[in-house]
């Protein structure tokens, strides 16, 4: 289980997270929605200890990762798989090399077994036959799929998705969502997904939380969020220019 209590973070005096509380139960897929630049990625980086909070705690399976040393933090990180916003594939490695990398570095598996698992992961994300290509040679959607395969190859118990479908066309977007749902069913991980994909996300996530002004204004099942009377949520899911959320104009 992931439990965030009173998380505060500011950068150069600007408050990004302002006493945020959130609980994600085991094997639940939680989607976090909110406006761009609202601190969603900052929140995700706190979950894996890439950013230290100014105040508050982040409990991962009972351990407060804000209060442990690097070694203990690395033990916690072993439970994670992360799909970064820009995929974060290693430029110098092929797609196969990228997917096999965590197995090579983190396990004592034989070469043959690593190859078998990496090729099977590539097939799961529909990229069979492309193992020798480099990240620079493939499209954004393919990169996201490789990133997903890399994140899941070690069968982590928690997977974080940072805008896994941003910048992709609706069809690829749907295929990535379906991939996330099927892998979630297959591996049973706890998932936290940052996304802007409304209304599609209501069919993918078990729970949805809305981040606004550095706090979670409401979280609940997709139906609860869809039918929420909170004006912030109403405005955000309808994309209206009128309401408490400031628009560009």
């Amino acid at each position, binding site marked *: 289980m992931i439990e965030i209590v009173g998380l505060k973070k500011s950068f150069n005096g600007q408050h990004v997270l302002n006493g945020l509380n959130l609980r994600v139960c085991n094997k639940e897929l939680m989607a976090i929605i909110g406006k761009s630049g609202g601190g969603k990625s900052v929140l995700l980086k706190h979950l*894996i200890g*890439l950013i230290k909070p100014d105040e508050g705690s982040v409990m991962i399976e009972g351990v407060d990762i804000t209060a442990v040393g690097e070694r203990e933090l690395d033990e916690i*990180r072993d439970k994670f798989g*992360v799909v970064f916003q820009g995929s*974060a594939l*290693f*430029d110098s490695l092929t797609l196969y090399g990228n997917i096999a990398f965590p197995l090579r*570095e983190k396990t004592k598996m034989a070469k043959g077994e690593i190859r078998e698992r990496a090729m099977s992961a590539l097939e799961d994300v529909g990229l069979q036959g492309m193992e020798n290509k480099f990240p620079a040679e493939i499209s954004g959607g393919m990169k996201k799929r490789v990133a997903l395969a890399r994140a899941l190859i070690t069968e982590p118990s928690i997977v974080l998705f940072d805008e896994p479908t941003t910048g992709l066309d609706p069809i690829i977007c749907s295929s990535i969502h379906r991939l996330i749902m099927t892998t979630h069913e297959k591996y049973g991980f706890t998932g936290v997904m940052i996304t802007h994909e409304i209304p599609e996300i209501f069919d993918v996530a078990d729970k949805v939380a809305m981040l606004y002004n550095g706090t979670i204004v409401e979280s609940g099942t997709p139906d609860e969020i869809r039918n929420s009377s909170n004006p912030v949520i109403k405005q955000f899911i309808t994309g209206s220019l009128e309401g408490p959320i400031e628009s560009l104009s």
Partner: protein
Amino acid sequence: MGVCFLSLLRRLGHMFIFLLKSCYLIFVPPFKFRMLLQRIRFFGNRSLLVILLTGAFTGMVLALQIYYTLRKVGSEAMLGPAVAVSIVRELGPVLCGLMITGRAGSALAAEIGIMRITEQIDALTSMALNPLRYLIVPSIVAAVITFPLLTSIFDLVGIWGGYFVGVKLLGLSAGTYFSKMQDFMTMEDIFIGMYKAVSFGVIVSWVSCYKGFYTDFGAEGVSKATTSAVVMSSVLILIWDYFLGSLFV
């Protein structure tokens, strides 16, 4: 004034801790030999041609200038040792260090900087893998190995450049050029040059890696980090050269 000094001190301390952490990891397994070989190739391959060119022309120019001075006092026979000692003790390591900074140091800072802004370094951290071990340690060790080798090549080519000008163009006898060199050059001269080359290797790789690792975001951040790496490495090479030179007078 005081604030600026404290800020400078803090930054220097941060850089020094970065170097200490990396040096500690050099001796702690697992060792990344494959990455070390890639980095050796990176330094050698990028810099060899420019080292050959600058070495040859440095030797040639030096021979011309020294011959001009020696002729006035009737000591043309000293051309060989004068060229050799100048190159081996001073010009070889310094010019070689500056050339590698321009060729490989800048590329190293840019490469690591791009890895930072594309979240590849975060990806390594999220896999509980220490990015210093994977990116920085191989670069520092590779620089310590390649700098003396490239400096030796520079020295050799420089001395032959001097030979070409002194013997083939200015009519000095080949025997005089080389025999006097043997009389006046000692192993100490060669060791001093090699000590300098090793220390310049540490400076260039340390500064370039640090600047890339802590780059600001965006293309502008990487561009600034690259420029800053080259300028700072070059200045530090010249300052450190003075201190080492004054030790071995």
